């Protein structure tokens, strides 16, 4: 046995256990039964570099004690053989230290604590937009479409395999600051896209044939305000002339029957329509982008909460849009798709009749611009938690909603105009 040890000692190169990579390094757990076995560990430690995790040093090893130690990749096979030959009871605690470290970082997520199953603050989301684009350059690119009132860049992600003459679907989240599940959904959708591309046939086809423009948070200033000051804030944070009240309702600020119904001319109201259509920098940036890409954008999806509704135009009037029949059947089928996962019941229909008349909405505006497939989602729930949807519901809410969005996207792809 001693001879074996010497051979091993000669053969081992002094592994620099201080190297930055831990590829292939193993961590063993040994329980020496007697002084002889303790001696074996002593000898090992004298001929190769061993990093003792417990106890701190080989000199503290005693019989019947649990001993954990790390060895370099090139020594691990020999160490294992030696332990087996000497009948020393052992187990491999960590088979590949680098893999274990990587796994830990993944579960904590890279960009400043980002998690798809938690609500992320704006800084985290902003960092994530950079990260997700950098990690998936063939599928995701990031751009800035404008600035918020408080001067923050409005990040837009473009998803899809690069190819000429592609049509696109535009989806935004976070219009209303307190609807936290909404930005969570946009982030989830992007994750689904990059993770299932090449694995899920539908998603692969969608990303090959279409582009998705995803605006994770429209009303960034408002969103931040719900984290720092008032969880129930809804509007933007722009200052209103001659008023101590802040903010405009971004979903009353579009040029679609602007301020004629379901909106207020009072700056203190939660549904204040603003001083004029697109008075808000955020809504103007969004509208400008859609106008500039009108020839390619074939569907517009805007994500809100709560009530579990799938709405389509019009909200500014009870009159039905000319594409009513088609939009109604798409909404019906998409709601069914959504319900197929967890039986979550959605109600669907034209905005005014289904929820209430409300003028100045982005979905109506997009439709009147010629974007035929225009839908508003109101995600979970129906009032038990309302805006304060528990984080435990983020995953199921997003999973079911992805089904509906994919359904609509697929329909659009098959009915391009």
């Amino acid at each position: 046995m001693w001879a074996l040890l010497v051979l091993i000692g000669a053969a081992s190169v002094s592994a620099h256990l201080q190297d930055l990579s831990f590829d292939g390094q193993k961590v063993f757990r040994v329980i020496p039964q007697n002084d002889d076995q303790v001696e074996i560990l002593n000898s090992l430690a004298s001929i190769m570099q061993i990093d003792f995790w417990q106890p701190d040093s080989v000199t503290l090893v005693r019989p019947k004690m649990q001993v954990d130690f790390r060895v370099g990749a090139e020594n691990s096979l020999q160490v294992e053989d030696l332990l087996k030959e000497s009948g020393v009871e052992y187990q491999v605690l960590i088979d590949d230290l680098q893999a274990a470290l990587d796994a830990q970082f993944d579960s904590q997520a890279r960009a400043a604590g980002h998690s798809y199953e938690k609500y992320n603050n704006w800084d985290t989301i902003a960092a994530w937009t950079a990260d997700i684009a950098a990690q998936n350059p063939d599928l995701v690119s990031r751009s800035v479409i404008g600035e918020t009132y408080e001067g923050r860049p409005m990040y837009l992600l473009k998803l899809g395999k690069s190819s000429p003459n592609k049509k696109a679907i535009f989806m935004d989240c976070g219009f209303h600051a307190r609807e936290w599940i909404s930005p969570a959904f946009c982030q989830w959708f992007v994750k689904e896209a990059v993770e299932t591309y090449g694995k899920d046939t539908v998603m692969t086809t969608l990303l090959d044939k279409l582009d998705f423009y995803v605006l994770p948070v429209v009303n960034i200033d408002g969103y931040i305000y719900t984290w720092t000051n008032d969880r129930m804030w809804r509007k933007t944070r722009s200052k209103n002339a001659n008023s101590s009240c802040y903010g405009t309702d971004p979903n009353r600020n579009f040029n679609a029957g602007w301020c004629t119904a379901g909106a207020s001319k009072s700056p203190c109201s939660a549904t204040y329509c603003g001083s004029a259509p697109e008075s808000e920098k955020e809504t103007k940036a969004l509208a400008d982008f859609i106008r500039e890409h009108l020839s390619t954008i074939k569907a517009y999806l805007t994500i809100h909460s709560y009530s579990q509704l799938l709405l389509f135009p019009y909200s500014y009037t009870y009159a039905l849009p000319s594409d009513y029949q088609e939009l109604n059947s798409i909404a019906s089928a998409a709601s069914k798709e959504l319900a197929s996962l967890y039986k979550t019941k959605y109600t669907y229909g034209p905005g005014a009749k289904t929820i209430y008349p409300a003028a100045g909405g982005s979905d109506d505006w997009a439709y009147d611009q010629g974007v035929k497939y225009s839908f508003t989602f109101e995600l979970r729930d129906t009032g038990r938690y309302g805006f304060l949807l528990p984080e435990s519901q983020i995953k199921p809410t997003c999973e079911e909603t992805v089904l509906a969005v994919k359904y609509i996207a697929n329909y659009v792809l098959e009915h391009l105009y």
Partner: protein
Amino acid sequence: ELRSELCPRQFPARRAAAVAVALLRYRRGGPARALRLRELRRARTEDIKDVGHKYYLELELEDVLDKDSTVNCTAEVLYHLGNQNIAPDVQFTLEGELKSTEEADHVFYTRIRSLEKELVAENIPDSHGHVPPELEPIHLLAWVASGYLVWQNSTENTEFQLAQVKHVKQVRRRDKYLQFDFVVLLHEMVSQ
């Protein structure tokens, strides 16, 4: 007398149903019973000259704590013409019995009685939607109380929900009753 069938998907019916359920919650809810609307089966409306609008509703209710058990309910909601300060008249009839919550109620009662200091809490749920399990019965009690507020303040043009319990404080009493003072945030859907 003009009775017409309403589409249960659409809002006037849904709002009336919400008012009926709010009152029901107030009357029958508790720290271990949280009734809510599972489905609005049918709705009809009637215009009563010089009185107001009456809604006839067929509801299916569920207990959020026990989603498998549902109970049917018929309700009538009368919104009074003109005077917006009178609460709507609501009548309801439950078909069958609601499951007893005596045991859970007793557990809650004893637990609160055994507290050394009066219970105080705020922001239920918190910003992330979390409710500590020991505060869930308090959350449900707030839901019961808000049922009263919703009913009292509802009109045909409103749809109220409890958004959050901002603050709850137990009030010390000499007798055997438990008393809680709540400050609640109500969300009004239509005017947002």
